């Protein structure tokens, strides 16, 4: 019953308590965002003094002006787009056919190939070997390197493979009888049938790429190639030491806090814009990647 009207009195109270607790949790989730946004629009002196609570004090766009004036900001923004869209595209190119092949019962050594993929979820050689490998392959400090090295992962492949496996074999058989080869079966039959799963994987890839920073930081030396998150980290790390002791020397219009807050807001905006649209996909997606009993 989703209709509360026939609930007993104690049950109604129970629902209200739950709503209240969820409300508190929701507010506490939202608050940090509101706080950072408020800081970003506040004057530097107000922010450093810690007077900003939930709305801007001394409203100013100075922090944003400062941030947007920095060419490296724009470069890194552009790079993030390159890594996100380029990376996701390459990922799909590898994952979709691979998952399809792994799902076909007629594949020789199927169990072996699948084990090979799954094993990587349980055992990982580690940071150093991966790093040295990239060096050996000459993929350090390059767009291509960063894109290709993280193009694939076992989780996404297995998720899509399971989805393909669940599609009744009669679809493939009918297409084969109509004369289609495997590429055509995949492209014309299975991909259209798997839109939710593919959308989910695309989503996972894009989010991971957009937010990715660690390996970008480790593998890239050239400042022109760094993505937004690495830029943000750089700003925080480099300016931080300045601020520790020099709080009183800050110009009044912007400060370390407002500038970093402004960069944060700028990098969250695209996520917020696309967020409502992707909502329905990850709901289904988790169910797909979830438990089979």
């Amino acid at each position, binding site marked *: *019953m989703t209709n509360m009207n026939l*609930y*007993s009195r*104690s049950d109604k109270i*129970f*629902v209200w308590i*739950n*709503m209240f*607790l*969820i*409300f508190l*949790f*929701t507010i506490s*989730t939202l608050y940090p*965002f509101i706080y*950072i946004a408020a800081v970003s629009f506040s004057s530097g002196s107000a922010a450093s003094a*810690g*007077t*900003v*609570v939930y709305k801007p004090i001394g409203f100013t766009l100075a922090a944003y002006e400062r941030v947007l004036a920095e060419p490296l900001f724009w470069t890194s923004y552009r790079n993030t787009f390159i890594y996100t869209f380029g990376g996701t595209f390459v990922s799909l190119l590898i994952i979709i056919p*691979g998952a*399809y*092949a*792994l799902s*076909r019962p*007629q594949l020789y050594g199927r169990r072996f190939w699948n084990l090979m*993929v799954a094993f*990587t979820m*349980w*055992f990982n050689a*580690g*940071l*150093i070997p*991966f*790093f*040295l*490998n990239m060096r050996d*392959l000459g993929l350090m400090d390059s767009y291509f390197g960063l894109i290709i*090295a993280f193009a*694939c992962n076992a989780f996404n492949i297995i998720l899509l493979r399971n989805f393909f496996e669940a599609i009744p074999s009669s679809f493939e058989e009918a297409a084969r009888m109509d004369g289609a*080869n495997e*590429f055509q079966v*995949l492209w014309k039959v299975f991909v259209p049938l798997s839109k939710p799963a593919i959308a989910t994987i695309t989503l996972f890839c894009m*989010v991971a790429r957009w*937010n990715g*920073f660690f390996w970008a930081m*480790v593998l890239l030396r050239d400042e022109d190639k760094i993505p937004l*998150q*690495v830029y943000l*980290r750089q700003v925080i790390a480099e300016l*931080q030491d300045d601020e520790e002791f020099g*709080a009183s020397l800050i110009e009044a219009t912007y*400060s370390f*806090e407002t500038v*970093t807050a402004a960069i944060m807001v700028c990098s969250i905006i695209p996520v917020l814009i696309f*967020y409502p649209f992707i909502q329905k996909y*990850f709901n289904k997606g*988790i169910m797909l990647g*979830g*438990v089979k009993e």
Partner: protein
Amino acid sequence: MSAPRDITGDAPSKVARITEHLRNEWQLYVMLLPTIIWFIVFLYKPMYGLQIAFKDYSIFRGVANSPWVGLEHFHTLFGSDQFLRAIKNTIIISFLSLCFGFPMPIILALMFNEITHQLFKKTAQTIVYLPHFISTVIIAGIVMTAFSPSAGIVNTFIQWLGFEPIYFLIKPEWFRPIFIGSGIWQEAGFSSIVFLAAIAGVSPSLYESAVVDGASRWQMMWKITLPSILPTIIIMLIIRIGNLLEVGFELIILLYQPSTYETGDVINTLIYRQGLQGAQYDLAAAAGLFNAVVAFVLVMTANTISKRYSRTSLW
């Protein structure tokens, strides 16, 4: 398929069968190839390079030419206070994270399930899923701003209450709570989706039957909802245990300071500092191997235990 032939006396040779199969199905292998090559090049080849954990590695000599030193690196590690401290921190943080972080999504899912007002529920869900999509760098940035000694809202609040401001991020005793709390804030909402999906799979007639029998929603939560999603909980727990040693080291790297190493330095951050930044590749590789082997053992154990006691397992 070729025309039927007299098969008495001979079976098609294995080679012939394979050739036939490849002729018909070569496209599948073409599709499989990029994936397999990728796995070999980026995930399996490093496993070959893992042998430097047992070698005295130098970049100039390369892997093949570096001499074997057996378990010397492991002796060094286990004799090193830093490494032992890192192990201790990893276990403690992981354990605390499990205790506080694992139940949260489940509790959230159960609470969401009891809310009947659809608009409220959907809006709240949308909001609590959001932090998952925010990058670690931003999370760290928010934490640093909020807990900043001079400018942070937390200290403003503390001073308002009449106390002295605390420089949270350089104090070792505060590192773990802040780190784990941020982790929960980021992931609890999104992680509840799996459980919500599991709850949605429970037949409504079970609840209808229970309500006619006189059960309150609270009783139904304990006697119907929870038992029904127990398999899901167990599987998520197994996955969680398998990742016990992961602890989100990216966030730690962003938040920690030399002064908080004593509570915050974990195995992976040590590897990062000494291995990548300090170029002690062989030693760090040994630490990483230790990490990977322990993780592997953990997952296998957890899975076996689960298979025996509750009929659910990961495969």
